[in-house]
C-alpha cells in the first residue's frame, strides 16, 4: 500500500479528514522550502502538495502565478524541487509529498527519468493539471512501475462517463476542483460541492480531496464534512507573499496561524 493510501486508511480508522497544504517550491526563495514543509507538518498537515514552478501556469490565479514567478526568479528547476524533497525526507519519512504542476517539465525530463528520480528521493505522487487521463499513455504505467501515485482532477463539469478513467488510471486520491475557475479565484460554494459529492458517490472509489476556493476555517469546516481531504493553497501562498521580504520566521508565524485555523476547523468537523 502506498504511503498516501496508508495515510488515508489510518485517518479513516480515526474518523479524521486530511489537511493538505500547497506551497510552491522555491517561494519566496529556494532555501525556505524545506523548512516550510516541516512547519506545515508540525502545524497539522497530513500530506504536502509541493508546486513545481512552470513558466506558463494557465490554470492558476494571480497569487500562485506570482509565487511561481518568485521561484523562477531563482531558476528553481525540477532537479532543485527533487533535491528539496530529498532533504525533507532526511527528517520526515512519513508525510506523503505530492508534486503538483504542469506536464512540460516532467515530459522534458522524460517520464522514466523523472519517475526514477522522484521515487528515489521520496516523492509519493504526481499531479499535472494539464494532462487528463486520456493523454496519459506511457505516463500512468511508468509512474506505477516506480510506485508513484497518479492524481487526476475532477471538476464540476466532468461528465460521469469520464470518471471511469480517473478511477482506473488514478490512485492515492482524486482531486475534486470545487469551482469553475483558477486557483484562488473565489470562495467555494458548500451547497454546490454537496450536490457534486452526491453525484460522484459510487462512481469514484478513491478518497476524495477537495480544493480551490478554501480560504478560511469556515470553508475548511464545511469541506471536511464532504470530502476525505481538504486542500488549501492560495491562502497560504498569499501569506508568503505578504511577508516576502521579512525573515523566514515571520512567514512561518503567519503560515502557522493559518494552518492552525484550518486544522482546528477540520478537527471540529471531524469531532461532530
Amino acid at each position, binding site marked *: 500500500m502506498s504511503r498516501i493510501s496508508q495515510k488515508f486508511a489510518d485517518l479513516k480508522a480515526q474518523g479524521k479528514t486530511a489537511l493538505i497544504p500547497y506551497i510552491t517550491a522555491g517561494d519566496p526563495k529556494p532555501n525556505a522550502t524545506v523548512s516550510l514543509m516541516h512547519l506545515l507538518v508540525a502545524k497539522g498537515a497530513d500530506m504536502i502538495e509541493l508546486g513545481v514552478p512552470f513558466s*506558463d501556469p494557465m*490554470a492558476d490565479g494571480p497569487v500562485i*502565478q506570482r509565487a511561481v514567478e518568485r521561484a523562477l526568479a531563482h531558476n528553481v528547476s525540477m532537479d532543485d524541487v527533487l533535491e528539496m524533497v530529498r532533504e525533507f525526507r532526511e527528517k520526515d519519512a512519513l508525510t506523503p509529498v505530492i508534486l503538483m504542476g504542469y506536464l*512540460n517539465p516532467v515530459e*522534458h525530463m522524460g517520464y522514466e527519468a523523472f519517475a526514477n528520480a522522484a521515487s528515489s528521493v521520496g516523492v509519493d505522487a504526481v499531479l499535472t493539471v494539464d494532462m487528463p487521463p*486520456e*493523454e496519459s499513455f506511457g505516463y500512468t504505467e511508468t509512474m506505477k512501475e516506480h510506485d508513484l501515485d497518479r492524481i487526476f482532477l*475532477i471538476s464540476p463539469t*466532468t461528465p460521469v462517463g469520464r470518471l471511469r478513467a480517473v478511477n482506473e488510471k488514478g490512485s492515492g486520491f482524486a482531486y475534486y476542483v470545487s469551482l*469553475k475557475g483558477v486557483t484562488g479565484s473565489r470562495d467555494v460554494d458548500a451547497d454546490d460541492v454537496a450536490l457534486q459529492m452526491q453525484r460522484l458517490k459510487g462512481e469514484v472509489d478513491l478518497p476524495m480531496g477537495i480544493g480551490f476556493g478554501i480560504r478560511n476555517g469556515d470553508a475548511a469546516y464545511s469541506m471536511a464534512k464532504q470530502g476525505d481531504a481538504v486542500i488549501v493553497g492560495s491562502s497560504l501562498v498569499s501569506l508568503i507573499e505578504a511577508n516576502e521580504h521579512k525573515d523566514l520566521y515571520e512567514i512561518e508565524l503567519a503560515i502557522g496561524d493559518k494552518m492552525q485555523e484550518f486544522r482546528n476547523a477540520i478537527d471540529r468537523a471531524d469531532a461532530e
Partner: protein
Amino acid sequence: MSKDSPTIDYAKFPDEHGHFGPYGGIFAPETLMAALEQLNQEYESVKNDPAFLDELAQDLRDYVGRPTPLYLAKRWSEELGGAKIYLKREDLNHTGAHKVNNTIGQALLAKRLGKTRIIAETGAGQHGVASATVAARLGLECVVYMGADDVVRQAPNVARMKMLGATVVAVESGSRTLKDALNEAMRDWVTNVDDTFYIIGTVAGPHPYPAMVRDFQAVIGQEAREQVLEKEGKLPDALIACVGGGSNAIGLFHKFLPDEGVAIYGVEPAGHGLETGEHAAPLCKGTPGVLHGNRTYLMQDKNGQILGTHSISAGLDYPGVGPEHAWLKDVGRVNYVAIDDEEALQGFRDLTRCEGIIPALESSHAIAYATKLAPTMSKDQVIIVNLSGRGDKDMNTIAQIEGFEF
C-alpha cells in the same frame, strides 16, 4: 525522413483524439474537457452539413469578400529575375488579414452552441479585430486578451477592437506577449466555461482547435489551387507562408499536401538571428514539449521552462507552433526556414515599393523568403506567396525604425 513516402493520407489527420503522429492531443485542465468535447461534437456534426457550409460560404463571399485574388507580382518577379511570383491576397479580406476566415466559422459555431460571450487571444491584433468584428455582427460580448507589450506596438488594432465594442485586456504577466495572452484567455475560459466560447486564432490549442481552424483556413489553398490552375494551367512549384502559430500557412498548404511536386516552405521569424537565441522559431531551433493544450515543438530551456521570444512582428512572437506543422516537419513534407527582422523589413520595403502593396510584418517574412528562393528558380516556374495580411497596423513600428513621425 519519409519525404518520398506517397502513402500518407494527409486528409486523415488528426486522428479522432486530435493527434498528428506524436503531436497535438488534448492537454487541458479538467474543467475544460467537457467544453472541448461539446465543441468537438458540434464541429463534427456541422463540418459536412450542407446548411452550415452554405451559411459559411455566403458569409465568406458577402461579408469577408472572398474569393481573394491571386495576383501576379509581375514587376517584383522580373526584378528578382527568377520564378513568377503570385500573391494570395488575404490582405484584401475584410479586417485586413486571413484571421477572419476562422472567426466567421467559429462564430457560427458559438451561435449554434448558444454561447453569449466570446473571448480571444491576440498577438498582432488581427485575430482580436476579427473576433471583435464577428462578435459585433452577432451582438455578442467580446473580451480580447493581448500582451501588454503588443498593446503598445499594435496600437491601431487596439483602437479598432475598442471601436467594435470589445474589451481589450492588457496582460501584464510573464513575457507580456502572445503566449501570456493565451494563458489569460484559458484562465477566463476555465472560469466562464458555461456561457463563453473561446475563439482560438491559430492552429494550436487542444483538439479540436488545430483541425477546426485548419479547416476554416483551408479555403485559402483551395482557392489558390483553382486560381493557379486557371492562370497557369499547372500547379505551382513552390508555396511560401510565414509561420507563427501557423494558421495562414496551414490554410495555404493543406490542399496542396498531396501534390508531391509542390515544394512547401514555412517561414519562421529568426528575430535577431537564430544563433542569438532571440527569435521565435521553434521548428528550426526548438524541441518537442507540451504547452497550451497540445504537444508540439517549443522554445524551452533545459528544465522545460518556456523561453521568451523575440520577433519584430507581434503575430509571430510565439514560442510554440501548431501541432500539424510539427508533424509536417518530422515527415519531411514541409521545409521550415527562418527570416530575421532585418530581412523581413527589407521584404516589407521591396513589396511596398515594387508593387504598391504594404504587407504586414508577419507576411513580410514570407515575402523575404521569396526574394531568396525566386532567383534560384527558372522563369517558367511558379511560386505562390501567402500575403496573409496588410501592414497598416505596423505603421507605428515602421515609423520608429525608419525615423519618421505621423
